[in-house]
C-alpha cells in the first residue's frame, strides 16, 4: 500500500522532483542528440559539488561533536560557531609544501591518492538519492559499488609501498588486511537484502522498502534478519573506512599516520577527502539497503521530499560514526581480525540462513518469533564464547624458524 497522504499534492511532488525538473529544463536547451550525455554530465557535476561540500561540513561537525563529547568546545574562531573552519583547512592544505621523499617511487606516490578519490567517486554513481535521482540505473548496481570499494584497497597499498617507509608499509599492510577481511562481511550482509528483494539493482531495493502497512514502513531494518544484517554491515563499514575503533592503520600514536605518513599538503587533503567520501558512500549504501533509502519513516510524512530523507539518514549515520569515534578505544590488529573472522563472519553466515528461513516461512507472526529466537540465541552463545577469559598459564615462547 503506497502512502498517498499529501504526497500527491502537486507542490510537494514538484519539490520532491525539483532536481530532476531542473536538469530536464537545463538539458532542454541542447539538441536532442546531446541530451542524454548532458544530463549525465549535470548529474556528475552535482555529485562532485554536493559531496565535497558535505565533507567540509562534516569535518567541522566532527570536530565540534567530538569536542562536546570530550567536555570541550570544538573550533569556534573561524566564522560563527567555527563553521568556516573547512575554508581555513582548505587554504592550509593547498598552500602547504608538497614533500615527496627522495627515495620514494614518484609515479606510484602520485597516483595513489588519485586512484582513491576516483574509485570512491565512482561509487556514488549508483546510489539512489531520491525518487528518480540515481545517476546510472544499473542492473548489477550493488556489484558495481562493491567493485569500486575493492579497488580502493589497491590505492591504500600503493600509498604505503611507494613511500619507502617501514611505518607506511606496515600501516598499509594492516589496512589492506583489515579491509579485505571486512569486505567479506560487508558483501555477505548485503546478500541477505538481495535474497529478499530478488535484484541487485539499488532503485529496486528502495522501491521494495517503500511500502507501508498502516503507518509503519517496510524497511529491512525492522525485521530480525535486517537488524542483525544492519549491525554487521555497520561494523564492517566502520572497518572498511578505517574509522574508530578500527583505525589502527592510521592511529597516530602507533604508526605516525600509517600509510599516509609521507603525504603532505594537497595529497593528504585528497586522502582525507577520500576517506570521508568513502564514509558517505558506504553510509549511503547502508541507508539504501537497510534503512529504506529515500522513503519516509511514516506514511503520513511522505510529503517531505525524498532527497531530504536520504541525506538526513546519511547524516544520521555520520553522526553515529562520530559518536562511536568519541566513545570507543582503538582495537588492536589481532583483536580486530579475530573479531572479524571468529564472530562477525559466522554470525553473518547464520544471518543468511535466517533470511532464507524468513523467506520460506511465509507471512505471519511465526517467522518473526522463530527468526528472532535463532538470532538472539546465536548472539548470546557466540558472545559467551568470545568473552571466555584467556587461559593464563606458563608463558610459552614461539621462536622464528
Amino acid at each position, binding site marked *: 500500500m503506497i502512502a498517498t497522504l499529501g504526497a500527491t499534492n502537486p507542490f510537494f511532488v514538484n519539490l520532491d522532483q525539483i532536481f530532476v525538473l531542473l536538469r530536464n529544463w537545463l538539458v532542454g536547451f541542447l539538441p536532442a542528440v546531446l541530451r542524454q550525455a548532458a544530463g549525465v554530465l549535470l548529474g556528475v557535476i552535482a555529485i562532485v559539488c554536493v559531496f565535497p561540500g558535505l565533507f567540509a561540513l562534516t569535518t567541522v561537525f566532527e570536530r565540534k*561533536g567530538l569536542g*562536546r*563529547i570530550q*567536555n*570541550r*568546545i570544538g573550533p569556534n574562531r573561524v566564522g560563527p560557531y567555527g563553521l568556516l573552519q573547512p575554508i581555513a583547512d582548505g587554504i592550509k592544505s593547498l598552500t602547504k609544501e608538497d614533500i615527496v621523499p627522495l627515495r620514494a617511487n614518484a609515479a606510484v606516490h602520485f597516483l595513489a591518492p588519485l586512484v582513491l578519490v576516483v574509485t570512491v567517486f565512482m561509487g556514488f554513481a549508483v546510489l539512489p538519492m531520491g525518487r528518480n535521482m540515481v545517476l546510472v540505473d544499473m542492473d548489477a548496481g550493488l556489484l558495481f559499488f562493491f567493485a569500486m570499494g575493492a579497488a580502493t584497497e589497491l590505492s591504500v597499498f600503493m600509498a604505503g609501498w611507494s613511500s619507502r617507509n617501514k611505518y607506511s608499509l606496515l600501516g598499509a599492510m594492516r589496512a589492506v588486511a583489515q579491509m579485505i577481511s571486512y569486505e567479506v562481511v560487508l558483501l555477505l550482509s548485503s546478500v541477505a537484502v538481495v535474497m529478499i528483494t530478488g535484484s541487485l539493482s539499488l532503485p529496486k531495493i528502495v522501491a521494495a522498502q517503500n511500502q507501508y502497512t498502516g503507518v509503519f514502513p517496510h524497511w529491512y531494518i525492522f525485521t530480525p534478519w535486517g537488524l542483525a544484517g544492519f549491525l554487521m554491515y555497520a561494523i564492517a563499514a566502520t572497518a572498511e573506512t578505517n574509522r574508530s575503533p578500527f583505525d589502527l592503520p592510521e592511529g597516530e600514536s602507533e604508526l605516525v599516520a600509517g600509510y599516509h605518513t609521507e603525504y603532505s599538503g594537497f595529497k593528504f587533503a585528497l586522502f582525507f577527502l577520500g576517506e570521508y567520501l568513502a564514509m558517505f558512500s558506504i553510509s549511503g549504501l547502508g541507508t539504501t539497503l537497510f534503512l529504506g533509502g529515500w522513503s519516509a519513516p511514516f506514511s503520513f510524512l511522505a510529503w517531505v521530499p525524498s532527497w531530504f530523507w536520504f541525506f538526513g539518514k546519511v547524516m544520521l549515520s555520520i553522526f553515529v560514526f562520530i*559518536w562511536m569515534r568519541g566513545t570507543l578505544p582503538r582495537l588492536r590488529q589481532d583483536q580486530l581480525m579475530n573479531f572479524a573472522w571468529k564472530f562477525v563472519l559466522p554470525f553473518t553466515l547464520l544471518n543468511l540462513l535466517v533470511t532464507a528461513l524468513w523467506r520460506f516461512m511465509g507471512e505471519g507472526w511465526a517467522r518473526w518469533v522463530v527468526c528472532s529466537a535463532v538470532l538472539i540465541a546465536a548472539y548470546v552463545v557466540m*558472545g559467551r564464547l568470545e568473552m571466555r577469559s584467556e587461559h593464563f598459564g606458563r608463558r610459552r615462547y614461539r621462536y622464528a624458524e
Partner: protein
Amino acid sequence: MLGDGILKGMAETARNFFGSFVSAERLTTVEYPEQRIPTAESARVFPFLVYDSKSPGDGADWLAGMRCVACQICEKECPPKCIYIEKSPDKKPDYVGKQQFYPARFDIDVSVCMSCQICVEVCPFEAIKMDTQFELATEDRFGGLLYDRKELSRSNEYYHSIHPTEATEVDARLAEEKAKLEAKAKAAAEAAAAKAAAAANPAPTSGGGS
C-alpha cells in the same frame, strides 16, 4: 552479554554531548583570552617591590615609601643571580622613622628569574614579594624583560589585592614591630625623664610619693 559495555559507553558520551549544552560541569572550557580563570592566592610569577603610600592610588611617593633598604641579601641569595642592586649614597626615613639606605638601582632580569621565591623568604624587611601577572610578553627580548626599580614598585594596596591573607599578616607584623619600638622608645624616654627628674631633685630620705 557481549556489547553491553559499548552501549553503556555510548550512553555516557551521549550524556556528555547533550549535557555540554546545558550544564557547566560538562563543558569545562575557559575561552582564553576572553575569559580567565582567577589565579589562586598563592600563585607566584615574578617579584615586585612593596611601597607604603600615604595617599594610595597616587603612586607619586613610591620612592619615599619603598620598604627596601638595599641590604643586598636577596641579591646574594638569588640562585640564578638575576637581581642587581646599587646602594644609595644617602639615607631616607623608613616606616618607623629610622634613617635607612635605599636602592639607587634595583634591576631584576625576569628572563632569568625562576620564580623560586627565595628572595621573598630571606628579605628581613618585607620589601620584596611575588606578583601574579603572567601576560608579560614583549617584542624586546633583552631590554623589555629587564625591570628597573620603578617598574618593580607596587603599592601595599596592590599587595593586599593579590595576596590578602599574606598582606594582612605582614601588616600586622610590621605594626607589632612598630608598636614594640614605640613602647621601647616610650619606656626609654620615661626612664630618661625619671633619671633627669631624680638628678634634678635630690631624693628626700623618707618615702614620700614621687
